[in-house]
């Protein structure tokens, strides 16, 4: 698939409402593979960072206790229509993905 | 091809009693299998005594093999009636594995359990052949 991120950024009365969804297994490292009996290694997003026009607006630090295919939403003030909101995640294996959208 | 003699042996009675006690689920039953619903390779007669309950006549290996063939036959009949239970085949596989290890006692017990499941599933299918109709939701006004 092209992206592992879904991002919506909407202005409501001066407040920008950000919602995001990541495609990620968020493996805890304590599950065993039913087929092989081996422990499935920890594999989870560690950080999710949002910027607006390059300015950091949120840093979310995740443990393995965040659900599979994580959802995260927050709000910020001072955004204008047309601003570029970017979400970027990195996981414990160093894999990463990012997505930009315009604030509407 | 498994041919099983039709007889009113004590094995049937014991077994029937066993599953009446254990299942407690099926209230009405007839000890006649709806064998006409399928054309399996095996075709046991209406009643098939469980010879695994009459120990001592055969070697354990022969007893296991006969019992296994019968149980597998009954399982196929249950499957043919669309009524096979979840673990019957698993029990048979496990019994084979135990037999392969020479654990005849365990193997035969597992076969008996599988056979019980298959027989009960067949009873269930037989009963359900008509019973389901009484559960169909009907309009409230029951006109005569």
């Amino acid at each position, binding site marked *: 698939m092209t992206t592992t991120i879904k991002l919506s950024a909407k202005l409501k009365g001066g407040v920008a409402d950000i919602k995001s969804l990541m495609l990620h297994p968020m493996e805890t490292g304590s599950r065993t593979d039913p087929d092989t009996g081996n422990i499935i290694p920890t594999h989870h997003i560690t950080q999710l960072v949002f910027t607006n026009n390059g300015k950091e607006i949120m840093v*979310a630090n995740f443990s393995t*206790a965040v659900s599979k295919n994580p959802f995260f*939403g927050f709000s910020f003030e001072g955004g204008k229509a047309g601003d570029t909101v970017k979400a970027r995640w990195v996981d414990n294996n160093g894999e990463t993905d990012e997505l930009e959208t315009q604030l509407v | 091809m498994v041919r099983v003699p039709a007889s009113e042996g004590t094995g049937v009675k014991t077994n029937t009693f066993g599953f009446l006690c254990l299942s407690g689920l099926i209230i009405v039953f007839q000890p006649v299998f709806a064998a006409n619903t399928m054309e399996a390779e095996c075709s046991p007669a209406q009643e098939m005594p469980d010879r695994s309950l009459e120990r001592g006549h055969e070697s354990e290996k022969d007893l296991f093999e006969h019992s296994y063939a019968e149980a597998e036959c009954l399982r196929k009949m249950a499957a043919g009636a669309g009524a096979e239970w979840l673990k019957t085949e698993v029990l048979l596989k496990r019994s084979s594995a135990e037999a392969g290890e020479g654990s005849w006692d365990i193997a035969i017990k597992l076969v008996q359990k599988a056979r019980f499941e298959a027989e009960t599933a067949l009873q269930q299918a037989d009963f359900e052949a008509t019973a389901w109709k009484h559960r169909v939701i009907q309009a409230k006004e029951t006109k005569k």
Partner: protein
Amino acid sequence: MNNTRRMILKGGLALLVLASLPRTIMAAVWPKKIFSSTTASEALKSLLGTDATTPSDRINLKVPEIAENGAVVPVSIDTSLENVESISIVVKNNPRPMAATFEIPPGTLPKIASRIKMGETSDVMAVIKTSNGIYSATSEVKVTIGGCGG
């Protein structure tokens, strides 16, 4: 060891890029110690220097009373407290209680929503650090063993 090697192989480029970018693009390193703590108290101490929090009714912690599914428990937190610096979600009975922690720069509202995993019935705590102190709100979420589901 294996993990480290994989990380270097796969993430080598990413790490290189990270190292060269200003802090505004990628924040500080993921605080591993906080997330590997096995008690809530230890986790809070390593995050905030203390596990003493002041219960506050100005924190609105929204969690279900009975979780439909322990694998996906919706949590949302907002507060009328001012100068909020961070918000954390702590699940006391999870093997590693610190579920997530959010850094709130000025301009960002103290209002977050996410979904978390819970192994068993537990108190869930919202811990909020402001320039004035550390505040919390706690609510119990019951996690049950399902029947057939959905």
